[in-house]
């Protein structure tokens, strides 16, 4: 079983991201379970959502305390919430930012991490460009597909078309695709340096 925890703020589509991740996994014939942390749903408040992916029925209903992957939609949470709590050693970390890990102040924490498992992607910028709104959730799913190689980009696109339609869907497909490519490029650079 692969467990993903998504951190963000109310209004950034954190819960929707987890739901779409589960739809993408379902599209690939896998079992998936997505659920929110059910906190107070206020714009700007820290929000957590979870997604489990497995090859058999998922019965477990506890929150994800030891994730295999983290998607951090808002880097300002890094010093407010214990986002790394329970993260498995060399678990995947995808952060929405245009800054470096050092600039974010997490370079020290991740310095011994497998560099192929840590990536940043400027998802908010990509969303503003492609969707016209600062919603980083969908491009981050594209980035997640690239870094984890757990899902195909096509499955993410199917999930987008399941959730949205018309221009919003088009914009999000473009955003996810761009983030996917950006992340792949960044991964290649990391591999070249390694």
């Amino acid at each position, binding site marked *: 079983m692969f467990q993903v925890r998504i951190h963000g703020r109310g209004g950034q589509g954190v819960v929707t991201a987890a739901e779409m991740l*589960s739809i993408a996994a379902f599209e690939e014939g896998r079992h998936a379970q997505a659920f*929110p942390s059910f906190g107070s749903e206020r714009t700007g408040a820290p929000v957590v959502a979870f997604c489990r992916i497995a090859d058999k029925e998922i019965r*477990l*209903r*506890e929150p994800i305390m030891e994730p295999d992957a983290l998607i951090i939609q808002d880097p300002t949470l890094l010093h407010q*919430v214990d986002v790394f709590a329970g993260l498995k050693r060399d678990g995947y970390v995808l952060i929405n930012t245009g800054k470096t890990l050092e600039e974010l102040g997490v370079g020290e924490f991740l310095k011994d991490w497998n560099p192929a498992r840590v990536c940043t992607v400027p998802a908010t910028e990509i969303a503003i460009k492609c969707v016209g709104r600062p919603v980083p959730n969908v491009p981050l799913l594209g980035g997640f597909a690239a870094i984890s190689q757990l899902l195909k980009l096509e499955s993410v696109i199917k999930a987008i078309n399941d959730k949205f339609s018309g221009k919003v869907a088009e914009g999000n497909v473009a955003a996810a695709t761009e983030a996917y490519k950006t992340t792949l490029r960044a991964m290649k650079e990391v591999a070249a340096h390694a």
Partner: protein
Amino acid sequence: MLKQTEGSHAVAEAVALCRPEVVCAYPISPQTHIVEGVGELVKSGELRNCEFINVESEFAAMSVAIGSSAAGARTYTATASQGLLFMAEAVFNASGLGLPIVMTVANRAIGAPINIWNDHTDSLAMRDSGWLQLFAETNQEALDLHIQAFRLGEELSLPVMVCMDGFILTHAYERVDMPTQAQVDAYLPPYSPRQVLDPAEPVSIGAMVGPEAFMEVRYLAHAKQRQALERMPAYAAEFKSIFGRDSGGLLHSYRADDAETIVVAMGSVLGTIKDTVDEMRAAGDKIGVMGLTLFRPFPSAQVRDALQHAKRVVVLEKSFSIGAGGILATNVRTAISALPIDTYTVGAGLGGRAITKRSLHALFRGAIQGKLEFLTFLDLNREVVDKQLAREAQKRRSGPIAENLLRDVGVVAAKIV
């Protein structure tokens, strides 16, 4: 058809497939997505011959449901928590009048202190209302139980609550197999009321009954409800023949055949318990599970049969009768009172406290080792409890309990669980 969708959405679709004629509801978390979903299906025309009525309160919702059901319409509503309590008088009336309304309860705690998260206090506060109560373990089961609930309720002329864990199920996206309209039509015949307000054949429903017959009316309600103990398994079998899967029934045992310890629970926590039990089985522990689907009527004889070979029974319940102890546990203990079985009551998950495998391992291990007390609370923070008790002993005006505890616990937004 297999689809990945939200629990609430799956239930809304299943309810629509049952062709309700009146749906009345008032929004309350975590139930709202369900009636919104049904409302959208009415508006889009996918659900035809259905009147969706927005009402001004939960009391009105149940009152409208009573009226429409008495007029012979297949009637559905949904609520949760304070909403269920607000309609309480009408809830008792619906069953007293013998009206087969189906209602989803998206289980949520009751205030004060106000709390939107999941436990079973709301449904269990209505356990004596005369409604049948079914508890779903998964979203698939929630969906299936709604289809069975219409069949069962209309056959017995009694209302049915389908209880599903708020947020944990209602807001969870998971895989469900959505039946076809043809399947549901083959299973659920059009509503043929046992009593109906019909101008062509006038009757009155709801007479005042004095001491001369009230006890007999109550006894008949009991006898009628007990018929569900035979109907439920039969309808589950028929359901399987049409839909191809096991769903419903009275209770389900899991790895319990040779179990010395059997854990009893209701609802979505059964999944986490089963995963824990699998791990303990792998380590050689003789432990199993009994999940209860039907809570009212309580299947006493079947519970006794399922538990009779156990040495100990651990009842883990998301409810608590303040000043007394467990509610489910009391029912279980009564069912097995003639047997030499130790029964432990564990209050768990109250107000949405996460129930983790780690805590369950420690709990079940303690029970096997004879270290468990007869009434305990899973992951109770004894420190803050003692601190408050000390405060109260020290000072008469020691401040509101809820506010004091929040200060003691500290900022929770930074924590994951």
